[in-house]
């Protein structure tokens, strides 16, 4: 019951805030009213959890409550469209995954222009882990690639559907290593993990935390990860050790509407840098093998541009066309 009352209370607070927001807020005084975070995914997902890591602290520092609103749909397009129409006064922001860099090459008629959005900060980044079902006749990445070369099209990997990070990471692996692992799309990471554990699909690229229970239960083995360097207590090697030059990172960014003034993004940035430097936040992220970044707005802008260029190449290589 408490949750319901709280949810209603927040919504009510938000409605009131909307009513008062007639005058233009001076950037120096920002924020003057509750800040809305658009989460372009269904409630209870990974982005919600990641936003929770810093939103409470950010709200304390800025002295205004932060209200989360979930607007799920179309690989974050629906939420982003809402953001692009919001007032650029820093009171409406969005927490989004790397999907925002992929969407221009997946959808023909995006209701917004990605280049006009104002990236505030790249918050975190983390690699995928390659979980392979434990009863296959090879035991590390090198053997897997040798097997895939000898048996093209025999191995299968689960993905989370068209344009998902897992699909792109797999496409990049196939083209970089010169192998052919077939993609089997699922509705979400949960389902594809289950199918690997059940032995129907051979492997899956997914977040560390999602693969861990299966690896501990003996149904899957950690083979490698898509980042650089050894990872975590298990010392999982990077795929780049066997496939030189391979890297795929997932990331999370805070984005503001087009034409948001730099005074506002600067204020947000300095608060975020302080939060991500706190030991508690660092430890919490490190436990899940996630790297906290908290970049400046300029860094975020160039990061987004590089990522968009990368996504374009991968998506074209897979053979996906915008529709």
């Amino acid at each position, binding site marked *: 019951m408490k949750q319901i009352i709280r*949810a209603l209370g927040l919504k009510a607070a938000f409605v009131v805030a909307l009513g008062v927001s007639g005058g233009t807020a001076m950037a120096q005084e920002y924020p003057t009213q509750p800040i809305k975070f658009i989460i372009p995914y269904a409630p209870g997902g990974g982005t919600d959890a990641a936003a929770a890591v810093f939103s409470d602290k950010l709200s304390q520092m800025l002295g205004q409550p932060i209200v989360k609103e979930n607007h799920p*749909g179309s690989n974050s397009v629906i939420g982003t469209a809402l953001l692009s129409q919001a007032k650029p006064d820093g009171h409406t922001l969005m927490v989004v995954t790397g999907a925002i860099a992929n969407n221009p090459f997946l959808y023909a008629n995006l209701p917004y222009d990605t280049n006009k959005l104002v990236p505030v900060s790249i918050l975190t980044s983390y690699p995928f882990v390659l979980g392979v079902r434990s009863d296959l006749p090879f035991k590390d990445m090198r053997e897997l690639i040798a097997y895939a070369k000898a048996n093209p*099209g025999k191995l*299968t990997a689960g993905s989370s559907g068209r344009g998902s990070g897992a699909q792109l990471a797999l496409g990049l692996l196939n083209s970089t290593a010169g192998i052919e692992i077939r993609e089997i799309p*699922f*509705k979400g990471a949960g389902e594809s993990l289950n199918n690997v554990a059940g032995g*129907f699909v051979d492997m899956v690229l997914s977040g560390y935390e999602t693969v861990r229970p299966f690896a501990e239960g003996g149904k899957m083995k950690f083979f490698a990860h898509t980042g650089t360097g050894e990872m975590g207590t298990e010392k999982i090697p990077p795929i780049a050790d066997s496939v030189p030059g391979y890297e795929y990172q997932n990331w999370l960014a805070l984005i503001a509407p087009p034409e948001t003034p730099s005074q506002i993004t600067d204020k947000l940035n300095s608060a975020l840098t302080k939060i991500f430097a706190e030991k508690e936040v660092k430890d919490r992220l490190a436990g899940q093998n996630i790297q906290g970044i908290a970049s400046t707005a300029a860094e975020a802008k160039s990061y987004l541009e590089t990522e968009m260029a990368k996504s374009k190449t991968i998506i074209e290589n897979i053979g996906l066309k915008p529709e």
Partner: protein
Amino acid sequence: MEFFNNLDIGFHAALSLNNLLFCFIGVLVGTAIGMLPGLGPLATIAMLLPLTYTLEPVSGLIMIAGIYYGAQYGGSTTAILVNLPGESSSVVSCLDGHQMARRGRAGAALAIAALGSFFAGTVATLLIAAFSPVLAEVAFLFGPVEYFAMMVLGLTAATLLAHGSFIKGVAMVLTGLILGLVGADVNSGTYRFTFGSFSLTEGIEFVAVAMGLFAFTDIVANIRSNQTREVTAPSLRSLTMTAKEFKQSVFPVLRGTAIGSLLGLLPGGGAMISSFASYAVEKRVSKKPEEFGHGAVAGLAGPEAANNAGAQTSFIPMLTLGIPSNGVMALMIGALMVHNIAPGPYVMVSNPEIFWGLIASMWIGNAMLVVLNLPLIPLWVRLIQVHYWVLFPIILAVCCVGLFSIENRVLPIYIAAGFTVLGCLFWRMRAEAAPLLLGFILGPLMEEHFRRSLLLSNGDLAIFYRSPLSVVMLSVAAVMCLIIVLPQIRQGRKVAFEEEA
């Protein structure tokens, strides 16, 4: 020992203050709507679905489950006191239950119904706890191929066992299937039937469909019906039953529990079929069948136990295989999927607190229901007399707020309105809407698994008959179709011949 460990996890989850509260809300609301004729558990759960989005998954499920079995208790109270089935599964309880009330044994009838239901509920809960893990072991063998076959079987059975016309059942399932196609296709990512609109890319909002077809349609249908009700109110003192009545109800309750537990497992089965079957059995085994319809204790005790047992065991196929056996279970699957939990054997492994918590809560909920139902009877009697013109506007307003809150937009409200019109049409055509909901949920899943199987086999259809499990399920579905369709063909031909002659 593992059994007790599991129950320990379950009670640990179910006995948390939060979950106890939601269990209580569930059974309270369930009893209330069970008593109000016309408002069924399906409608109520559809209404409360948006609420569960903001809850922990286990709390939400506990509440929904509470509404479902709570309604079985509440329905019998109205049946006994007013001679109106508060809920479709208590139609049978009117027959003998109300006759008992008219002879001044209303209190005893209520006590028999409540205690019989409690006993059946306890047994069924134990059955779920004991057999689900066994079934789940088998379910680990289920891959895309087997899931496809299972869904074919589930949809076929649901269509065939639905009451009413067979053709209408098929038509409803197919309509649901088509509606389910709207949105992005999982395998190719292509958009289907979205008409270029981004708001339809995630498909038609399931809650809006359910609310329109069930909740709002029920309201429209009820406004048209007669609102005066005569209540045979019992006094609290009369709640004790005589030794003779107790003895007469023991065996019917045992038999009813067995029948209900079995029938609840079948796709398309559940509370209603169980109560009818139990009544038929009791009448047959009774030494005095002429008493039935004039206040026979067995005719009340058996079906009451059966409908409650059936309501509970229908959770087994849903929890272990992810196959809904009726509309309420379809809604439960919807509630799970919102939280990114794909119903199936893995739920038990990945989210044991949800699985066992739900089971433990069922027993707790059943105990709460006995307490709610017996001493509070005078209060409930007043509820039956509340006018719909007070109730309906409140329900409508709450529903619209709920619909808006799902995705923070107005579209689902319009969709629900559209489906209300459709639902009223179905109601006038006497076509049951539950198969549509099953088609809506299972259809896209079935297609997804079918195409995934073909992706895995590189397009080779042989994959479907290489798996023994899939062969068995597909054959059973085919035989079921033949059994139903053949007599109709024969009849049809007979009619045709008669016309020729």
